[in-house]
């Protein structure tokens, strides 16, 4: 279930500056890769960590990293997101909105699908409307409900009318699920406008794509051919890289990084991301409904230990709210909670639950949760809190355990906007309001921030929401987990996009083979 991202060495200041300047090109040359001029040609093999017979060519159905990579090879979106997390035009040459409710997208002219037909507004409207159809089983079925009307305004113009203001629409449309397919295509088979054309597709086995020589962005892509497979076993994936069978892999376990560092032919890209595994005390159950009990838990978390021991420092310390420090909207005024056994003990006493045995459910499905639970159990025993760690199977964990007991672990993937993370996991009426909290002020701010265009004003609103979550929501987020990609040093141009590994799955268009 956990999805990963790759890494890089963009530093935080660069990220913040470009995020705030809000201008510039998609991929600012930030690391040594920029010294080289991209070379054309070459064929590489790439392995991600997840595959199944459910592998699909339909962007709306994409569920695993392999799907996202495949879709970004074959299709384009109206917008795209680069390392600075700002959405920029892609198939749309521009977009604008006066009231953040009614949006106007203008397409580039002369873009062609792989079958030779021209991209028009009809294709965009078809692609977006598909998400409403329950039979498509789109992963964006909930998000699409915000779209009140989608209509064409001539051959190249699209008007999207939202039911409520949302300043994040461009970011939402940059997700792989909203990539554009051909008008009338009920079950897309790879005919997109993307940088590569489909040569072979076997679900659960492999995907082969070849360069689209008529790609609408001149000079791209650089590679002639990419073979995409998945190697679910992490050790095998790293072995495949080190034996030269594969040139790029994702989702490297921090424990394997030594092996890659030891070999001069290979390198790693660590992408700080907003991925986190959290301990969820349900507020509507006991004893986790008791604020003192939750406080005790929060003071019981040894965040630096988790960062160091579980993730070998490939992580960023978290502060029980979902916005990571490198996010443009991060509020650094929220006081950091840290390990404090005396306070934990005092709060535990006050809650009246000391000495009570409390089960906590962990599964490998929530990355690192089993170890986190054990660490907390150890510290708990020192203050009279008896946590009983129930390690349950990953299979079926999300439907049978997650949020169903007083103490369970969750695992939340990076979302393209702060709004999406807050809306999906923290809004009072959200399906996955993990802790089950209700906070009117938070809900109001969340809606209001969608209708706000100014960066500073938004930062302030999202900042207050972070404070609210930190203070009143019981969710415990010890660290944000970095995503580690491994690659052959002859692969150039790979950069970190903090939404996922492998440049948030978009590497295919940007990397080249220097050999």
């Amino acid at each position, binding site marked *: 279930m956990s999805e990963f991202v790759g890494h890089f060495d963009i530093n935080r200041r660069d990220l913040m500056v470009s995020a705030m300047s809000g201008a510039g090109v998609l991929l600012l040359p930030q690391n040594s890769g920029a010294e080289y001029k991209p070379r054309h040609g070459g064929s590489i093999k790439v392995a991600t960590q997840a595959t199944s*017979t*459910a592998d699909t060519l339909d962007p709306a159905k994409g569920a695993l990293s392999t799907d996202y990579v495949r879709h970004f090879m074959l299709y384009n979106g109206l917008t795209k997101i680069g390392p600075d997390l700002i959405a920029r035009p892609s198939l749309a040459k521009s977009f604008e909105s006066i009231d953040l409710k009614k949006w106007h997208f203008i397409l580039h002219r002369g873009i062609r699908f792989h079958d030779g037909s021209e991209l028009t507004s009809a294709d965009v409207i078809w692609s977006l409307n598909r998400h409403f159809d329950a039979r498509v089983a789109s992963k964006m079925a909930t998000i699409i409900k915000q779209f009140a009307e989608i209509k064409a305004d001539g051959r190249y113009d699209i008007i999207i009318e939202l039911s409520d203001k949302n300043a994040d629409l461009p970011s939402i449309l940059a997700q792989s699920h909203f990539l554009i397919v051909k008008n009338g295509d009920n079950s897309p088979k790879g005919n997109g406008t993307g940088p590569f054309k489909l040569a072979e597709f076997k679900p659960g086995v492999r995907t082969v794509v070849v360069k689209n020589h008529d790609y609408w962005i001149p000079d791209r892509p650089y590679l002639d051919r990419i073979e995409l497979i998945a190697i679910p076993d992490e050790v*095998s994936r790293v072995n495949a890289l080190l034996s*030269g069978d594969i040139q790029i892999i994702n989702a490297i376990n921090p424990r394997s990084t030594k092996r890659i560092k030891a070999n001069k032919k290979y390198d790693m890209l660590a992408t700080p991301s907003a991925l986190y595994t959290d301990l969820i005390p349900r507020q509507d159950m006991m004893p986790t409904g008791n604020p003192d009990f939750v406080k005790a838990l929060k003071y019981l978390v040894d965040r630096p230990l988790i960062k160091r021991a579980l993730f070998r420092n490939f992580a960023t310390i978290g502060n029980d709210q979902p916005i990571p420090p490198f996010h443009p909207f991060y509020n650094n005024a929220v006081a950091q909670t840290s390990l404090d056994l005396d306070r934990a003990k005092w709060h535990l006493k006050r809650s009246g639950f000391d000495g009570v045995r409390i089960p906590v459910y962990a599964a490998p499905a929530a990355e690192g949760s089993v170890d986190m639970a054990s660490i907390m159990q150890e510290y708990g025993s020192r203050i009279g809190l008896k946590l009983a760690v129930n390690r349950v199977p990953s299979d079926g964990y999300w439907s049978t355990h*997650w949020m169903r007991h007083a103490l369970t672990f969750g695992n939340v993937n990076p979302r393209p906007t702060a709004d999406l993370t807050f809306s999906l996991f923290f809004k009072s009426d959200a399906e996955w309001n993990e802790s089950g909290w209700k906070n009117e002020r938070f809900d109001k701010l969340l809606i209001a921030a969608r209708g706000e265009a100014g960066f500073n004003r938004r930062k302030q609103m999202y900042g207050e929401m972070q404070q609210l979550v930190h203070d009143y929501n019981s969710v415990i987020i010890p660290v944000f987990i970095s995503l580690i990609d491994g690659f052959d040093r002859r692969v150039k141009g790979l950069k970190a996009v903090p939404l996922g590994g492998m440049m948030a799955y978009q590497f295919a268009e940007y990397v080249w083979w220097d050999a």
Partner: protein
Amino acid sequence: MIQAIPFFKPPAFALIKLILKRVGSSLLTLFLVSVVIFIISGFLPGDAAQEALGQSATPEQIAALRHQMGLDRPAIIRYYEWLFGILKGDAGQSLVANMPVKDIISERLPNSLMLAGFTAAFSVPIALFIGIFSAIYRGSFIDRFFNITTLSMVAMPEFLVATIGVLIFSVKLLWLPSIAMVSDDADFVSTLRSLALPIISLAIVVIAQMARMIRATVADQLDKPYVEMARLKGIRFRRIVLIHIMPNVIGPIVNVMALSLSYLMGGAIIVETIFNFPGLASLMVNAVTSRDMPLLQACSMIFCSAYLFLMLFADILAIIANPRLQVQ
């Protein structure tokens, strides 16, 4: 001195009767297995619709997809539909991949058969050699040597053998690929090269098991009075082993081989995982985690039939080789 071997052609009638009986009971077994799998998988948390939509699905979405997949109908009706489909030779449609189960299986089955076939071709001669050789020279240095090696090979888990193999031959020496990529355009040599490590990892365990069983069986026969008699008659020892003992041990040996082969068909899951080999075993695990009932049923039917067929084959061979069994 040439001696007539007691090797009668069995009355064809008795053999056919046996085969029919066994096929009948095999069909019954298959039916029971399918029922059991259907019922057990019903106890798994979640269904294909939930697994497909994942963590982020709303109840309405799940209901819609369930309806589309036909999962909202009672289990018993779904089972009957599947059963009648399979009787007509139609394994149904995969719930998850949206393609006929037949197509998915036909993609993977040849891979599994190839891996099992190569491994068997590699292991059987070696196992026969080790087994017979160490039985003949019981107690010798070479016997003890084989004894210790095979014992430790049996005890060594496959993943260890496979991982060490990869570390040495792929990562350090760069001789062999660390993953088994089978593609249609690969020639025989490159296919064999990419399968080398999986075959060796599987073969090590299989050889050790077979060799030990063969040794025990042959050694047992060597102690029998008829062998002593033959030796007293002055028959050459090689002849005693090949012509007198062999017909008596073929039954058990073929049985051991059949068991090993059926294991190779479905039990190669660890090797499939480590080498990322697109075989049937990982497909079945995949079907379980995605709750893809038609695919799961098809896989289990294949494994079960392969097992039953190999057992039947072993029994028939044993009967042909040993006339005494024909009387019973």
